[in-house]
């Protein structure tokens, strides 16, 4: 097998014609000289002319061969070595692309990448030229390297950026670079954690490189178990309460062959824990109430809960509801919420007049049942809402008088006459609204004899979540201050609606109750590069933060009003930070990378292979191309031949 390393050089073979041209021109250009008489020369010439012709021809051939051999030598022809001890690795050109996007900043990952690059570069022979490229969503740095010291210096200089990943740019850069080089083997090593989003739209680049004979190797840098991150979560309360579900997203990527500890940080109301699905879904059983924190440990199909750190949530014992209504007016609602003694919901009914002086923090949410909307009620509502206590407004006869007036915030009933009784078919149920999740039209298709306030003017914070076919609102939700608001534009009484007789009524009320009792708390979510700020009412003695890499950093204190905030500026590593206010106390805080940059979004090598069939794992890399065979470079041979030619030419010329 034969291969030419620098085939372009062969075009220089045209120069082999130069001696021929000179030879031909030289013959024409022999200068004519007069000589007295040729009679003596003629006798002598007969003997020498034949030798002269042969000699000139040999000289011409030698000169042409000299050029041919020189050109051939520098084009580096390679032949497959016939014997195992002869030859060496074919000269190659290699691009190593190292990912320095945000996700590579996770503890230890970049060091792993550095070690992998050194491993790869050590496995090359001395005949491979190499370029190193660090990239995020752009080319960060690139350098041609010739020695191990160059590589080390490059690796020492690379830093993780707070940028995303775009592998396409780096691959295209390397592809162009390799196209310009003459090499027997061309390879690209991608050293990355391979986020999915970074690999979008790469198919054609990979195919192009494959067509150009560029081998692509993936060096997938795996993260350790401590470095698994979630970009968010949400609670999905289901009915009944005992089956509250915690739905995690994005998906947890899990290698089924391995057990490993998953560390994550939660905040919210959960009651009990039970894993119900393998990858994404955890069902939480009712159990002990109170604050919980600990590890989730995935071990086969079991999900154990240890009272420890890294997540915390509150499981309430029961809900306490304040119902403000005229006596016996709201019996359907109170019966639905608290049907018996063991009910988890305790309902306290107060008249409108008794409302003054009620402590807001005593109740999980408040129901304003046909209270009307005067200044007093509005003030009371806003008072509850400012404390984060949700309210349910049930509109009845008393609200008729307030038509065309502001009910709450920017909600306004446009026309009192439009509060009409009629037959309603439900058109839309917004299942994105948590209490209606999974319900769709069940039991809500038709609402007979319902009398409602039809025309509302809503501000942007409010929306209709149940809408009749004629466009009338049947449930309005929104937020005011820190509190949630649900408005039902009709009284829950047989004179107004058939809803209390429907099977859906009790579950719906339960769902609304749990929705409203869950305070609108901003999920504490920090990202790399931001500052962590933890509020505290008391002044700690020696507060500090423990970083994911084990370093300690003291917390700076900022006072805002009565509250103190402990701040760690400029987080530069993703992971779990622990705020230690004092001995024996720990508040864990998760500092996440972007969802796209999280390990949850990364490809395994098998997934990569499925998408890009030509990609190889870096562990498959063989130093000797063509299945380990050695190649002999004919450069020295042709060089020797060219020297022999020129020597023979000189000797013959001077004879």
């Amino acid at each position, binding site marked *: 097998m034969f291969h030419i390393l620098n085939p372009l050089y062969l075009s220089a073979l045209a120069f082999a014609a130069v001696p021929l041209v000179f030879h031909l021109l*030289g013959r024409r250009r022999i200068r004519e000289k007069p*000589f007295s008489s*040729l009679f003596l*020369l003629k006798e*002598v*010439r007969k003997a020498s002319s034949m030798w002269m012709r042969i000699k000139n021809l040999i000289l011409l051939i030698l000169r042409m061969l000299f050029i041919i051999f020189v050109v051939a030598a520098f084009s580096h022809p390679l032949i497959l070595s016939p014997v195992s001890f002869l030859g060496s690795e074919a000269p190659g050109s290699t691009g190593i692309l190292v990912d320095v996007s945000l996700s590579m900043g996770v503890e230890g990952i970049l060091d792993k990448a550095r070690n992998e690059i050194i491993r790869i570069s050590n496995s090359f022979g001395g005949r491979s030229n190499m370029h190193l490229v660090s990239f995020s969503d752009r080319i960060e740095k690139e350098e041609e390297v010739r020695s191990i010291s160059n590589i080390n210096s490059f690796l020492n200089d690379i830093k993780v950026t707070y940028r995303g990943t775009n592998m396409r740019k780096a691959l295209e850069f390397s592809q162009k670079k390799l196209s310009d080089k003459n090499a027997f083997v061309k390879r690209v090593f991608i050293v990355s954690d391979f986020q999915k989003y970074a690999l979008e739209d790469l198919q054609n680049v990979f195919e192009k490189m494959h067509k150009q004979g560029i081998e692509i190797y993936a060096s997938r840098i795996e993260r350790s178990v401590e470095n698994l991150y979630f970009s968010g979560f949400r609670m999905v309360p289901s009915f009944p309460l005992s089956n509250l579900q915690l739905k995690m997203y994005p998906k947890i990527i899990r290698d089924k062959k391995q057990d490993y500890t998953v560390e994550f940080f939660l905040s919210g109301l959960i009651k009990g824990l039970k894993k119900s699905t393998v990858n994404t879904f955890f069902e939480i059983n009712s159990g002990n109430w109170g604050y919980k924190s600990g590890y989730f440990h995935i071990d086969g199909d079991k999900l154990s809960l240890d009272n420890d750190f890294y997540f915390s949530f509150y499981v309430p014992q029961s809900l306490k509801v304040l119902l403000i209504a005229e006596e016996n007016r709201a019996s359907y609602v109170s019966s639905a919420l608290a049907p018996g003694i063991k009910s988890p919901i305790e309902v306290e009914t107060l008249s409108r007049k008794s409302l003054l002086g009620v402590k807001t923090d005593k109740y999980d949410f408040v129901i304003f049942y046909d209270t009307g909307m005067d200044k007093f009620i509005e003030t009371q509502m806003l008072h509850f809402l400012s404390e984060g206590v949700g309210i349910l407004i049930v509109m009845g006869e008393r609200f008729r008088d307030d038509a065309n007036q502001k009910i709450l915030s920017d909600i306004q009933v446009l026309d009192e006459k439009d509060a009409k009784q009629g037959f309603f078919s439900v058109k839309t149920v917004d299942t994105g609204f948590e209490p209606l999740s999974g319900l769709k039209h069940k039991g809500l298709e038709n609402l007979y004899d319902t009398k409602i306030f039809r025309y509302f003017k809503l501000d942007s914070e409010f929306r209709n979540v149940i809408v009749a076919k004629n466009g009338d609102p049947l449930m309005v939700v929104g937020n005011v201050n820190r509190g949630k608001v649900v408005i039902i534009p009709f009284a829950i009484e047989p004179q107004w609606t058939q809803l209390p007789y429907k099977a859906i009524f009790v579950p719906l009320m339960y769902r609304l109750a749990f929705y409203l009792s869950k305070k609108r708390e901003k999920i504490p979510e920090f990202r790399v590069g931001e500052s962590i700020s933890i509020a505290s009412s008391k002044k700690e003695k020696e507060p500090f933060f423990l970083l994911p890499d084990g370093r300690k950093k003291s917390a700076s204190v900022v006072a805002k009003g009565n509250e103190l905030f402990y701040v760690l500026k400029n987080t530069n590593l993703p992971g779990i930070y622990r705020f230690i206010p004092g001995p024996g106390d720990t508040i864990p805080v998760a500092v996440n990378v972007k969802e796209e940059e999280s390990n949850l979004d990364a490809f395994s090598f098998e997934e990569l292979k499925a998408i890009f069939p030509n990609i190889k794992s870096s562990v498959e890399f063989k130093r000797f191309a063509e299945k380990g065979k050695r190649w002999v470079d004919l450069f020295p041979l042709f060089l020797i031949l060219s020297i022999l030619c020129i020597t023979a030419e000189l000797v013959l010329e001077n004879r």
Partner: protein
Amino acid sequence: MIRNHTHYLDPKVISKIKGLDIIARMVVEGFLVGLHRSPYHGFSVEFAEHREYIPGDELKYVDWRVYGKTDRYYVKVFEEETNLKAYLIVDKSASMGFGSQGISKLEYVKYLASALSFLLLRQKDAVGLLLFSKKLDSYVAPSARRNHLNTILKELNQLQPSGETSLSNVLLELAEKIKRRGLIILFSDLFDDYESIIRSLKVFRHKKNEVLVFHILDPAEISFPFRGDVLLRDMETREKITVESRTLKHEYKRKILRLINSYKKDFRNVSIDYQLLNTENTYDTALLSYLSKRKRMN
């Protein structure tokens, strides 16, 4: 002074001077000055002039009368009385136009012939001139008159190389023409058929003529100094051949030397004086050859 005169024996120097009569005079005078102490002095029998005594002169030639008058020693210089007819036969073929050193063979001959004519006429010898190439182109009958020199020099002055050499034919023709025996002086490069040349010159010897052959060659014709491939054009035939000088040089030199030696040997065998002259040689060599010959003839 002496040095100045001998300086004019150098062909390169003399070639820069215009006027053959001057050249002839300068060459001869330069030559004669150099001869003061040579064995050839006193060859003239008719008094010509006085010259200052130089130690070594024979006392019998001292003019005591002049000594008595002037207290200085003068010797008498005599002119030889002669009735010799000398024929200068000049090859003017195209090959004689060859010259690699700034002076062609024919120019060399021109100056030499002029000088010899001057010398011969000064000795009261009759001098004739014959110019030839393929045939006899010009003939000046021999005469000893003083103004005859002008006639000869005029002919020589107009001399231009042309035509091929056919030396043997011309010599045979001349042999018929020259009735009275005399001195035949041939100037040629002798590039012709060797045997014919020898044969035709023998005819002169048969007719009791003395023959002196000046074989005129250019240094390049002896050393063949060309390099590499050269296209040589024969100056007579205009024939061209390409030769690789390096391979030919050795063989050529061998051949030309063999030719020269053959001429030397064969001319000697038939009592013909032969003198090889290359155009770098000073004229005294040629003039001495002549004088030597002349002496032997006496």
